[in-house]
């Protein structure tokens, strides 16, 4: 049974999602309404999946994700956002979230996503794939002095990510590129992993620079 925690400051929504998950046979180990409680309860209950709203009382969803990544927890973060603010979603994914869904996603889509994240897969909507593609393009166009060691996508990864952004399922992508389902998944996950690694290196470098200045 997958152990899930739900974080949302909206009680109706939080309870509704928790009920859906429980009815579907998942184990909702905790819920929280703000960032502080979220971090504390994740540390206490160690869920496999954290269903996280980005817009919560401070620290916000992006900061919560960053904190959990920093602590090296196994908990996977699945972001649920009402507004789907592009920069917030991108920041959350860079900070370590495994996927993102808008809140209007159907109950089935949500349950599938939670299961997928629990299995260690990334959950990409076409919108998120477009954002990630854009981020890689931004990194590749930035002057090397601003973005040293910026990660690059391989041709195959770009191809796969573009197809995700165009709404193809992993199965359809596998068919079109004559690859296995697993390989497609690995490619997608790699694109995220490289971005997250780069983000961590950047944060450390930023911290060191700040530290030396003060």
């Amino acid at each position, binding site marked *: 049974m997958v152990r899930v925690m739900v974080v949302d400051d*909206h009680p*109706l*929504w939080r309870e*509704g999602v928790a009920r859906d998950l429980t009815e579907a046979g998942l184990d909702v180990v905790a819920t929280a309404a703000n960032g502080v409680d979220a971090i504390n309860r994740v540390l206490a209950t160690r869920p496999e999946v954290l269903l996280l709203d980005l*817009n919560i009382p401070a620290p916000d969803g992006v900061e919560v994700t960053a904190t959990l990544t920093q602590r090296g927890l196994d908990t996977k973060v699945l972001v649920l956002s*009402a*507004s*789907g*603010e*592009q*920069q917030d979603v*991108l920041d959350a994914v860079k900070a370590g979230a495994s996927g993102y869904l*808008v*809140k*209007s996603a*159907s*109950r089935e889509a949500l349950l599938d996503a939670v299961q997928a994240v629990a299995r260690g897969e990334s959950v990409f*909507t*076409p*919108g*998120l*794939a*477009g*954002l990630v*593609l*854009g*981020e890689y*393009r*931004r990194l590749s166009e930035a002057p090397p002095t601003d973005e040293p060691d910026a990660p690059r996508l391989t041709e195959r990864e770009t191809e796969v990510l*573009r197809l995700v*952004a*165009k*709404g*193809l399922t992993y199965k*359809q992508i596998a*068919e*079109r590129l004559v690859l296995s389902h697993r390989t497609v998944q690995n490619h997608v996950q790699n694109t995220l992993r490289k971005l997250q690694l780069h983000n961590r290196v950047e944060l450390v470098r930023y911290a060191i620079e700040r530290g030396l200045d003060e």
Partner: protein
Amino acid sequence: MDRVTRAAQQVDDQFYRVLTVLRAVTLVYAVGVNAARWRDFEHPVAAWLLIGVMVIWSGVVTWLYEPRHRATWVFIVDMVVTLALLRSTQYVHTPEMLAEHTFTLTTYWVTTVVVCWAVRWGVTGGLLATAIVQTVDVTMRPTVNSSTVGNIFLMVLASMLVGFCAHALRVSAVRRVEAERAAAMASERERLGRAVHDGVLQILALVQRRGNEIGGEAAELGRLAGEQELALRSLIQSRGRDEPTTDGQMIDLGRALDTLAEPRVSVATPSRPVMLPAEVVEELVAAIRACRANTTLHGGPEPSTWILLETVGDRVVVSVRDDGPGIPSGRLEEAEAEGRMGVATSIKGRLRDLGGSADLVDTGGQGCEWELSVPLTRVSWPTGAR
């Protein structure tokens, strides 16, 4: 000190730093001129002592003009000392030197205090300082000649120019700070607005979800809530782009595409704006609508559509895919060869007019996919393209 005052002071600081250089350069010049002619003086020893005072005072006053000491009395004392040194020329020079209008003991060094006054009190201050300095200079001469008039003229020009510039720069620095403050307030308002919108979106999404589960009339309510949720979400997403989205005739294509989102239409864009001339955006959106019209025409009952916006090198690529039956490869060329002008032909035409291209991607039976591509660097609409 508030930010506005600080911005104005930063402008002043820069001026006084430049004036320090001016003071040093004119000092070196004055020492050089006097060293070359000290034997001509009536009182050479006094001259050297006075030059020493000038050197020391230059150092002291540079220190006094630093932001933490800079007060009105510094300007007045600097003026008094400068005038005293200037007037001492009368004692050091021979009457012949004075009559010939040779350089004063201080030469151009006196200009520095005049310019300082111009920075401090604008054109009025500069002109007042010029009047004081020139009165002291002229009244020790037995006659007035063309070089005196020339000197006065140059000093009036310099003080007016510097006074005006200092004032203008201060005003623009203050305006910039005020504009930044207004922008910060606007973004704070927007942040609050987003929080409110987020709450509304949550409710709409919830109504949609529960409505569908309950069924019947509630499902209809849910569907309506879902439509509004999507409309509000795309509005917020496009406004959330952090750079200005309109730049004269340049507008953000991503923002324009966001407005195309519907329950069956997904739009994927980069987080950065993709700026293109308004006409190009208009044509592209029209072409995308045409792609979709083609889909609904050939695609039977309501296929889903996915729109992807990318920048690839110096090109903007928009992919429009649907999960309808697709167009068999070669079919388009066939139709064109037969002289039939279909929707597809018009899409290609639109893109050609933009200096770009429209291609049907071979999807191997996975629906219909268009790739529309236009150059990113094109800024002006080509003449006669319409």
